[in-house]
C-alpha cells in the first residue's frame, strides 16, 4: 500500500476504497473563461451555501474576493497590460490578485494590448491534502473518487484544517446562530453527492464555455497538456498548467488549471506545499501512540470485565 501523502497515483485506494472509481477532478481552462460566475452561483445553489456579503471590492468585477466557507468557487478578474509578467517585477505577491492601480504610468493609446484575465478558482483536492492530514475527527475524508470532502455531521469546528491548507481554501463558516453549518469547516465537495449518482458537479455542468471541465483526472491531464500545446502553437506562449505535476508540493492537484500568466497573478501560490509534508515521521509516531492508547483501552475493557 502506498502512502497517499507522498503523491501516489491513486489516493482513493490508499484511503481504503476497494471498488473505487477512476480519480475525478476538474480542469479549469482559464483561456476560455468569460468570467460570468455561473460556477459561483450554480455551486451555491446546489450546495445551499449562503450569501457571502454584499461588498463592492473594487477588484475589477470580482466582488467575491476569495474562497472561503461560504464561497466554494471564486472567479478572479485580473486587468493587466499584455505580455507583462507581473511576477518578474514588483514585490512578492501576497497571493491576492494584482491590485496595481489601473492605468498607473500609462495613457490610453498605449494600452491597446490590454488583457483581462479571468479564472475560476476552487479547492484543489490535493493528492497530499494537509487539511485531511490534520483533521482530528475524521470529518475530512478521502472519497472513493479521490476527492477531499468535509463531513458536516462529524466536524467539530476545531479549525486545524484552516491554516493547514496551502491555498487558503477551507474555512469555518462564520455567521449568526441559525446559519446553516455555522462554525463548521466548509469547502468544495466536488459535489460528492452528485458524483455518487454519476452526475457532473454543478459548476462544471453550468459553465457556458466549458472553461470548467469535469472528468477522470488522467484524461483531464492529457487534455490539459494538449490544450497548452495548442495554445503555444497558436501564439500564446504564456499558457501553462498549474498543479499538473504529481511531484509538486501537494502531489499534484485534483483540480488542474491552465493559466495565461504566473499563478500569483491569479492569487494562487506559485509553489504550494502541503503543510504536513514533513510530518510523516511524526505521523508514524502518532500512529504508534494511537495504537498504544487503543491497547491500553482494550486492557481497561478486559480489566473491567473481570
Amino acid at each position, binding site marked *: 500500500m502506498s502512502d497517499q501523502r507522498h503523491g501516489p497515483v491513486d489516493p482513493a485506494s490508499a484511503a*481504503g476504497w*476497494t471498488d473505487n472509481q477512476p480519480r475525478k477532478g476538474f480542469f479549469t481552462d482559464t483561456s476560455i473563461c468569460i468570467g460570468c460566475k455561473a460556477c459561483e452561483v450554480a455551486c451555491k445553489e446546489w450546495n445551499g451555501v449562503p450569501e457571502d456579503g454584499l461588498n463592492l471590492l473594487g477588484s475589477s468585477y470580482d466582488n467575491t474576493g476569495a474562497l472561503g466557507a461560504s464561497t466554494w468557487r471564486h472567479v478572479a478578474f485580473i486587468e493587466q497590460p499584455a505580455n507583462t509578467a507581473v511576477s518578474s517585477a514588483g514585490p512578492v505577491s501576497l497571493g491576492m490578485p494584482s491590485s496595481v492601480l489601473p492605468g498607473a504610468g500609462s495613457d490610453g493609446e498605449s494600452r491597446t494590448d490590454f488583457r483581462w484575465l479571468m479564472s475560476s478558482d476552487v479547492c484543489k483536492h490535493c493528492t497530499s491534502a494537509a487539511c485531511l492530514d490534520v483533521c482530528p475527527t475524521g470529518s475530512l475524508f478521502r472519497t472513493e473518487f479521490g476527492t477531499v470532502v468535509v*463531513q458536516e455531521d462529524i466536524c467539530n469546528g476545531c479549525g486545524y484544517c484552516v491554516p493547514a491548507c496551502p491555498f487558503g481554501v477551507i474555512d469555518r463558516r462564520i455567521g449568526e446562530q441559525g446559519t446553516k453549518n455555522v462554525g463548521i469547516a466548509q469547502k468544495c465537495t466536488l459535489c460528492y453527492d452528485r458524483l455518487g449518482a454519476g452526475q457532473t458537479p454543478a459548476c462544471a455542468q*453550468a459553465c457556458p464555455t466549458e472553461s470548467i471541465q469535469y472528468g477522470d483526472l488522467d484524461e483531464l491531464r492529457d487534455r490539459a497538456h494538449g490544450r497548452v500545446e495548442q495554445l503555444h502553437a497558436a501564439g500564446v506562449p504564456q499558457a501553462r498548467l498549474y498543479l499538473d505535476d504529481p511531484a509538486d508540493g501537494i502531489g499534484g492537484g485534483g483540480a488542474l488549471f491552465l493559466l495565461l500568466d504566473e499563478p500569483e497573478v491569479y492569487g494562487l501560490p506559485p509553489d504550494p506545499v502541503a503543510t504536513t509534508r514533513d510530518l510523516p515521521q511524526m505521523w508514524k509516531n502518532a500512529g504508534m501512540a494511537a495504537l498504544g492508547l487503543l491497547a491500553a483501552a482494550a486492557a481497561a475493557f478486559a480489566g473491567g470485565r473481570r
Partner: protein
Amino acid sequence: MAKGMRAVNVRQSVLSWPVVRQLTGGDPLGRGSAVTSARTEALQPRTVTADRVVKSICPYCAVGCGQRVFVKDEKVVQIEGDPDSPISRGRLCPKGSASEQLVNSPGRQTAMLYRRPYGTEWEPLDLETATDMIADRVLASRAATWQDVDDQGRKLRRTLGIAGLGGATLDNEENYLIKKLFTAMGAIQIENQARI
C-alpha cells in the same frame, strides 16, 4: 429518511465504530472509507430523490436555454441546464443558475397588497376582491375617457385612459390575451420592453 435511519442503526454496531473500521479495513490512517459518517453514506443528490423532472426554459434573456426543474413534495428543489437542448447544451449563466432562488427566494412577494389613495402603508387585500376592484376601475376609467369619434367625426372607438407596459418576460399566450382584451376594450396604449 429510511435509509438514514438504517445507517444510524448500523452505526450502533460496535463493528461500525470508525476506529474498528480503521483497524480492520484498508484505511488504517482513518482518512477514507473508514470514517464515512451516517450522513455521508446516506447521501443522495436531490436530482435523484426528486419526484419528477419537468422541462422548462430559462426566464431571463432570450437565448432560451433549456432547464430541468426538479420537484419534490410539490416544491421546486433544483433547476439546472437541460443537456438535450441544442441551444444551450445543458449550460446556464449565473442568472439561469439562480432560477431556483428566483422561484423560492424568501424575498419573493406572494401576498396581494393594496395601497389606498394617500395611504402610507401597504394593506392586505383578498385576491378575488382585488380583481373585482380592477374590473370596476377598468370600466369606470374606460367610460370616463371613452373617445367614440375624433373632432372630425371619424371613428376612434377607444380610450386613452388605460395603459399597460410589459410583456417581454411573459408567455406568448399571455401577450395574446392581453392584446386581445386591450384591443376589445379599446385601450391602445399597451407597450413592452421591445419599445425600450
